[in-house]
């Protein structure tokens, strides 16, 4: 085992992920090689035993709870002032959609309504005119007969 190679095994060795065979070879090497032994020893110490007491430690602010309560109340009050419930929005949007669909259907029906047949129009006209002058039934019958003869 050369030294560079041994150093490459260190992360796996640290996590206990080396095979038993590899670990035995490594330990034999470490017994005989001071440089690698020092490397393993120092790196293990640094990574396994952090000197947390040597880090700067902050003291908590004793007034923080008061500020937190005040901030939380502020946010809560802001939410209460605006009246914007979810259900109202849903109802409003549904109403708008229903109105738009109705309007569209109404306009579509009147724009695309089929035109009445000219013959039908004349028959209807004659029927109503006949009502205005007497003998409605006779006149209407005569007229219908005329139409049938014309069609033939």
């Amino acid at each position, binding site marked *: 085992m050369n030294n560079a190679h041994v150093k490459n095994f260190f*992360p796996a060795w640290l*996590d206990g992920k080396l095979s038993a065979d590899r670990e035995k070879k490594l330990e034999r090497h470490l017994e005989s090689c001071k440089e690698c032994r020092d490397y393993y020893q120092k790196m293990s110490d640094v990574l396994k035993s*952090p*000197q947390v007491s*040597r*880090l700067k*430690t*902050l003291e908590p602010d004793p007034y*923080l709870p008061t500020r937190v*309560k005040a901030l939380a109340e502020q946010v809560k009050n802001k939410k209460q002032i605006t009246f914007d419930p979810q259900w109202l929005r849903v109802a409003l949007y549904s109403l708008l959609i229903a109105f738009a669909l109705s309007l569209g259907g109404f306009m579509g029906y009147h724009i695309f309504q089929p035109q009445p047949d000219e013959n039908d129009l004349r028959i209807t006209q004659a029927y109503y005119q006949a009502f205005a002058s007497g003998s409605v039934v006779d006149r209407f019958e005569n007229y219908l007969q005329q139409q049938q003869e014309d069609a033939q």
Partner: protein
Amino acid sequence: MYQTYGARILNLAFRFTGNEEIARDLTQDVFVKVYQNLENFKHKSQYYTWIYRIATNHFINYLKKEGRRRWYRLLDVNIEDAVRLDQDSMAYREKNIFPSPENHIEKKELENLVLRMIHSLPLKYRTPLILQRYEGMNSREISGMLSLPVSTVETRLHRAKKILIKKLEPWLKHF
């Protein structure tokens, strides 16, 4: 609750950010969230786990936004200046955060040096390493905290340590 956990959350924020002012602001944000959501806490876990989860997520979100802001600032300049600025700031950071290994360094400063090296890791490797190293959490606890599978946490810890080892090697003689 603040008396019990306030100091731990504050120092966790400090470990994540390295800045006292930001750590205090983030701690305040965390406790505001805790206060607002206390009624919704369903006791499915301990208070400590719940507060830690809120805190960790908040710190991670802050650090992600900070990372994006740094890139957005670079968008305002042309490409050449952006590269130069980034290189300059990297060189400045390296010089000030990691003084030369040839210089003498006090033993009491070594842990600070390690923490600064940890700060230079990508966020996804830095987070589990900080929780393991400074909060004494195991992989299972970290996976619960970060909502990640245990295997992912272990992989990230392994990679984080690999990068850290490479950074530590020139400094080993001081330890």
